[in-house]
């Protein structure tokens, strides 16, 4: 499952079930949630936007790489779009592999690569303003 949806629609159980495979003994799940602070400032919410067709295509590439490089049977990546409040889910990655080490490693590769290659942008809102994350040096 590769998808972009509102945080309210993200269902970790459904994503876990989507990678279950009888040939796999491990499912590693990464859940990224909204933190309440950034460099000491209180964060009230995040807003995500994406270049949607390209984001889906880049997420699909990552899932394929994890399947090829970590012998994963199934990989699901679901990212939130729109507003996310503190504590809500921004991203879920689930990787199913025959044995546990590859599922941990594949999941880490997926989240690290997502941050580098997937055209999704995050705006952080503070009590006194907002900014697009990582925009300026």
């Amino acid at each position: 499952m590769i998808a972009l949806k509102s945080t309210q629609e993200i269902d970790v159980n459904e994503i876990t079930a989507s990678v279950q495979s009888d040939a796999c003994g491990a499912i590693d799940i990464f859940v990224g949630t909204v933190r309440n602070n950034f460099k000491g400032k209180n964060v009230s919410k995040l807003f995500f936007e994406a270049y949607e067709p390209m984001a889906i295509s880049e997420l699909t590439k990552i899932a394929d790489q994890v399947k090829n490089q970590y012998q994963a049977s199934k990989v699901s990546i679901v990212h939130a779009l729109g507003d996310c409040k503190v504590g809500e889910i921004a991203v879920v990655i689930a990787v199913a592999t025959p044995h546990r080490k590859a599922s941990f490693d594949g999941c880490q590769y997926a989240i690290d690569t997502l941050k580098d290659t997937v055209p999704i942008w995050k705006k952080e809102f503070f009590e006194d303003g907002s900014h697009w994350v990582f925009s300026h040096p």
Partner: protein
Amino acid sequence: MKILLFGITKDIIGDAQLVWELKEDQKTSNDLLDALKERYPELQKLRSIALAVNGEHADGSELIKQTDEIALIPPMSGG
């Protein structure tokens, strides 16, 4: 041609997309990016700025046609 804008590039250029007239000397994606940076100097202050051509990250050498789908890609921050 229309250039899709996301994140901070929307704030810099002031719209969700930019109508751009491709000039003779803008042959590659690097040429186009340089012209955009010259027209909108604020783009040069970003940590990074790149283009996507037809939904793929550009490496700078792509030959650009009027019909291509171009997007400006400021620093990504998913996750």
